[in-house]
């Protein structure tokens, strides 16, 4: 009833692209150009024209994706064709070059094309593998639910520490205030947690407060379990145990959240290469075509 874009219409575009690739390889092997194989032979021009048209058409995917009224196929069909025809371009474009590479605009165009295609392959791969990973990691939660539950835990924790007094209250409250997820691209992709907290330190018999990392709430858990191990009062111990349970739950949610951010980031990051490289490719391609005809 439904299926992935990779198997759209029984993999029609896969077979189409494969036929195109095989046909051009056969033609390349069969063709006997004057001199070395190059873009200037009739086959070179044919392959070049097909490849250039393909590049323009592949770029139009960005338009079709946003043309919500369009009845020209489905976006899924377009993506399927985009992936397989884009892949075939690797062969078509390379055969067009006749393997003549140098330090020039033509080879730059080829290189950009390869980079766009490789980033696209990565994209197809993450689109294939990551949705399941994200689903498994989320385990029925949404980001909104996770944030809400963390807020709920914080609220409960701050009520509990009112009965505990220093130093637990300062540590717990500061851990809540200095809690931080997200951040820049590296933080997101690395699943890093920059949360901090304050702990009391004795320095020359003077007590002062110091900021330390509280990544994954681990430091807070260490401090609280330390307090619990030294606690002699049953009531205080009960409150500490309750706090530890809450913070452990928060640590688990946090892990889930950081993982979600990381996976989602990895699933989207390639577009930040794919699109700018495509634009660069279009510009270089134009220069390549113009210069070829200019020097003709």
């Amino acid at each position, binding site marked *: 009833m*439904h299926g992935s874009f990779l198997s*759209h219409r029984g993999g029609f575009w896969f077979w189409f692209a494969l036929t195109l690739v095989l046909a051009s390889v056969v033609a390349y092997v069969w063709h006997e150009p004057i001199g070395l194989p190059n873009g200037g032979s009739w086959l070179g021009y044919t392959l070049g024209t097909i490849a250039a048209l393909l590049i323009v058409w592949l770029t139009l995917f960005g338009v079709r994706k946003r043309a919500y009224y369009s009845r020209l196929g489905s976006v899924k069909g377009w993506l399927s064709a985009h992936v397989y025809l884009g892949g075939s371009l690797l062969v078509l474009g390379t055969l067009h070059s006749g393997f003549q590479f140098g330090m020039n605009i033509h080879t730059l165009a080829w290189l950009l094309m390869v980079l766009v295609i490789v980033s696209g392959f990565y994209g197809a791969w993450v*689109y294939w593998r990551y949705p399941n990973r994200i689903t498994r990691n989320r385990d029925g939660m949404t980001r909104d639910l996770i944030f809400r539950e963390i807020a709920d835990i914080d609220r409960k924790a701050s009520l509990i520490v009112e009965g505990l007094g220093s130093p637990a209250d300062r540590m717990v409250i500061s851990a809540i205030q200095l809690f931080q997820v997200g951040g820049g691209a590296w933080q997101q992709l690395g699943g890093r947690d920059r949360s901090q907290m304050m702990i009391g330190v004795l320095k020359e018999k003077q007590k002062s407060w110091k900021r330390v990392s509280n990544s994954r709430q681990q430091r807070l858990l260490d401090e609280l379990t330390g307090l619990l191990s030294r606690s002699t009062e049953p009531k205080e111990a009960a409150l500490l145990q309750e706090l530890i349970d809450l913070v452990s739950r928060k640590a688990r949610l946090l892990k889930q959240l950081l993982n979600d951010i990381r996976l989602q980031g990895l699933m989207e990051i390639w577009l930040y290469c794919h699109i700018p490289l495509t634009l660069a490719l279009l510009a270089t391609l134009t220069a390549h075509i113009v210069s070829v005809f200019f020097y003709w």
Partner: protein
Amino acid sequence: MEKRFEVVIVGSGPAGLSAAGRAAELGLSHLLLESTTHLANTIQRYQKGKHVMAEPGFLPLRSSLPFDAGSREDILAAWLQNAKKLGIKVAWNADVTAITGQRGDFVLQTRSGKSVRANHVVLAIGLQGNPRKLGVPGEDQPFVQYQLDDPDEYLNEEIMVVGAGDSAIENAVALARQNKVSLINRRDEFARAKEGNLKQLEDAVERGRIKVFFNSSLRSIEAQSNGEHRAQVSLTTGEGDMQVPVDRIIARLGAIPPRDFVESCGIQFPSRAANAVPELTHQYESNVPGLYVIGALAGYPLIKQAMNQGYEVVEHILGRDIKPVDHGLLAKKFSGLPFGLDVEQTLDKIKKNVLCFGPVNSLRFRELILESDVHTPKAGEVIFSRNDYTNSFYSIVEGSVEIEIDEQTGKRVTVGEGQFFGEMGLISGRRRNATVYAGRYCVLVETPRRTMLRLLSSVDEVRRRIDQVFILRAIHSQFAPNSNLEDLADLVNSAELRQYAPGEVLFAEGESGDELHLVRRGSLTVSRYLHGREVVLSYVPAGKYVGEMGLLGNSRRTASVRAVVPTETVVMKSEPFLALLERDPKLKAQVQTQLQARLRANASMESSTEGGELLSFLMRQGLGEATDVLLIDESLCVRCDNCETACASTHGGTSRLNREAGPSYASIHVPTSCRHCEHPHCMKDCPPDAISRNASGEVVIADNCIGCGNCESNCPYGVIQMAPIGGSQPGLWSRVLFGAEHKKVKDKEAPKRAVKCDMCTNLKGGPACVRACPTGAAVRISPEQFIELVRED
């Protein structure tokens, strides 16, 4: 001797105010009784700046007061100004508690102990009902309120909120921001409250902002002139009696539905159904002579209708024979008819000819025709086609129609004058099961679903007549299209209708039973106990049957059958059914083939327990009443939200689906999006009747939506939103190149309309969400495909 008014009007809403306005204009001695201190309380309670619409647009206004679409403030100001100009006499704080007497000698008692005498009484109290009072000494003190308009009005007060519902909790939480609040609950828990509210309450209690008294009730309220606080409340709590000082009491005990009061005046209702309206004459007169009922209470919830009735009722009281304002509309409706009769005669003719309308009173019948369409189709014309999703009801005034009951053989039956058809679609909420062709010279009345449902719930006799024919036709088309109707008499007479609540068991595995259930509305699941667990094996929608195994000789039930949603079945007994099978060997073979197919399907489901779990998950999400639902396969979804963007872009900037919200099971995600229910909850209470189902099945909201928000709160799946009208759509290229988004209307007070998924009815290519999904994760499927989906997984 106290003064006796010619007419006393109870309630100053649109209907009552308009009646009083006409009476004042004509110089009639009149009095308008209003239980609060301002006119039109219901409209006053609309939120500030709300845009009020003037539906139905086709109906002209006939009133001494003006009314046009506009803001709440403008409308109220215009009414107040005109009420003064016309010299309407109003008695404020006059909450009527009893009406006795009859034409020429009515006595009305008010709560404050006054009585008013009148020759005629017009009851226009609407349906909101009065707030339930505390019922203890001091309940009417000025600091005791039964409503809270603006919680921020109060600061640093001791406030006691009484009640256990959502409004009490919401008020308490809002007031607790800058006051000390206590909340009084008669019971030991808040069972009726929404989860979100409970959480907020819990928070506020934990922070010490609200103190809740459970198992507690008020005994008395004593005002205090000296002392820190305004009053002292005596409270009975679970731990004994106590005194609590307060500055203010907010009691939110719900409203008393007006029905009991109306019945205490002697007015009769035709049935116990909650939405039944009193029996009234043409002139809006009830069964109590001289006592008239108009407005929402009479079944007319729209402002304009109510105002027209207010005007007309005064004319009727004066004995003037004015034609109802709809006369012209009916004349136009009837203009194409070949009868050569005037409006009243045509109405009489239709009523006389169509059997099922016989028991309907004339006022309601007029309304029914006004809401219906009259057709004179050419012979052979298709009235509706098999598999259409329409659900209107047709009656034959003259001529006949032919119903094609068997698609393959093209066999048709003729249904003649006075009969009706289309009841299956109306009752089951599913596709039409036959194509209907017009006969020669036929005249048809097509009545919309809502009008018919209202009629069915208020006139039992109509319901009985339609049900009888329904059973006959259902059995005929399902089991015996080749038999004569006479042969079915035994089976039909022994059949009965049964209702089941969601989750109720029709029969359980291992029981003995020999009844066959033909589902006429709702849906069922079939399940078995396997390896110590109940596993759902299949889903039975309306139009299909279960239990045939019991009939065919195996009287021990091999599976349990349970209702998913409110369900109604036609129950058939085994003896007459077996007799029928004996007479028709072909039918017997057919029933056996179907049974085998089902057993085979069940066996294959049994081999995959995960499939059964997924099916029961889908049922728990309410998909048992869906006709078309959006599902997302999370193993394919890349969370790009192109579905939402596509929806927003093609629908004025508001996405009607929320991809991420909603539950998931085994990678199937049910996003918050309309599932186009068989019996849409949203249609239940739409004043302008703006929600309808298209022939192709989509439930859509038309432009005459007045933005009241009823559908939004009636939808149990949260898929309807109120969105401002307008905004502007950027072009394709500015979206591609610059990521431009839809510009929304910024003005917070701009008129709003209800919006929901319309399955992109107006887009030729079909639903934009599915077409815009790049990976194939989004699919729209109908319940018949659930089993397919489950097997695939």
